[in-house]
């Protein structure tokens, strides 16, 4: 289980973000030492049309893009509206706020501290990962999805 002592924070923007803006903010966050995990959240953009008479057709969408964070390619599957961060120390919150201030210039945003990520496995987590699940995976990716999290080279 994720240790409760790691502080977490949540960034919520007034608008849903374009992939370019997500790339910008993630690159700003990636260079801040002390961020353990980042979850990007928002409404899903499916690869294929999920319902209706056109079900199964390809779904070209500019929001479903590949962005580059540091040296790693990240495939976006959602239109990002919320970022959850797990930090090693509370001291870096001011740096996160600074990064947000530089990127989100045209609309407002909020940075809140609290507990936002899952700390105990759900039934689906247990079914997928078993009793010895890697704690760091919990709440990081959808357990039903085959693709895992993206690892970004850190500073340590």
């Amino acid at each position, binding site marked *: 289980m994720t240790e409760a002592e790691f502080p977490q924070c949540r960034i919520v*923007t*007034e*608008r*849903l*973000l*374009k992939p370019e*803006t997500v790339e910008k903010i993630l690159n700003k966050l990636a260079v801040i030492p002390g961020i353990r995990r980042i979850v990007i959240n928002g*409404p*899903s*953009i*499916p690869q294929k*049309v*999920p*319902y*209706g*008479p*056109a079900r199964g*057709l390809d*779904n*070209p*969408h*500019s*929001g479903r893009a590949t962005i580059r964070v540091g040296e790693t390619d990240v495939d976006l599957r959602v*239109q990002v*509206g919320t970022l959850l961060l797990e930090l090693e120390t509370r001291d870096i919150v001011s740096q996160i706020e600074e990064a947000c201030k530089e990127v989100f210039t*045209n*609309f407002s945003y909020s940075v809140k501290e609290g507990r936002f990520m899952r700390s105990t496995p759900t039934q689906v987590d247990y079914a997928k990962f078993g009793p010895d699940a890697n704690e760091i995976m919990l709440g990081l990716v959808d357990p039903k999805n085959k693709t895992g999290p993206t690892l970004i080279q850190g500073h340590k």
Partner: protein
Amino acid sequence: MAYTPQYGPGQSVVAENRRKQMNPNVKLEKMRNVTDEDIVLILGHRAPGQAYPTAHPPLAEQGEPDCPIRKIVTPTDGAKAGDRVRYIQFADSVYNAPSQPYQRTYTEMYRYRGIDPGTLSGRQIIECRERDLEKISADLINTNLFDPARVGIRGATVHGHSLRLAEDGMMFDMLQRCILEGGTVKYVKDQIGTPLDKKVDVGKPMDDAWLKANTTMFHSLVGTAYRSDAEYIEYIQRIHSLRTKYGFMPVE
């Protein structure tokens, strides 16, 4: 004494807009000019220029039974020709879209004949005979009931009306049926999400001031707050009170 409908209570601009949309004597304001061919493309029910497929022979040919109601009610053009029943569906953003599902249904019931509207929380569908539908759709898209950015024409996968807007002011659409390009909104897919051969331009998104002045939705953050309309509050409280007391002693 002749009855004059009031259409709805309220003193706010939102209430006034609601009354204007519902009242069939008020002409809807024409805002844009999307051609009939483009509307056929967005609807996606038939190819432009194709004859209307039929569900039954024209009424004149099929021999109507002797029925007093049929003598009173004149059939619409679509019914007369035996057209199929087809639909258009709209999703209206909560951020000051010009209309909203209940309002759309009231408006359409006051203004059009031979329709079957379906009202849901985030979307509103209207079903009718195909050639009637195209005429009604042209009205709904070309007038002040529509905004290219805050209203979506979505036959399926409508999710987005209550979500935050995108950075460019467009309502979220997981199928991205329309895109903002060069300041105007263009449909690249029809209402169910099948890609179109050509982009259909539906005009410029309206600015925030226009939307705020022409919306029929209350919104305490971006528009007119519901609580600022005392008459509306009084009306809704009266309805609530009567509904609650009803069955016990429905008197005021």
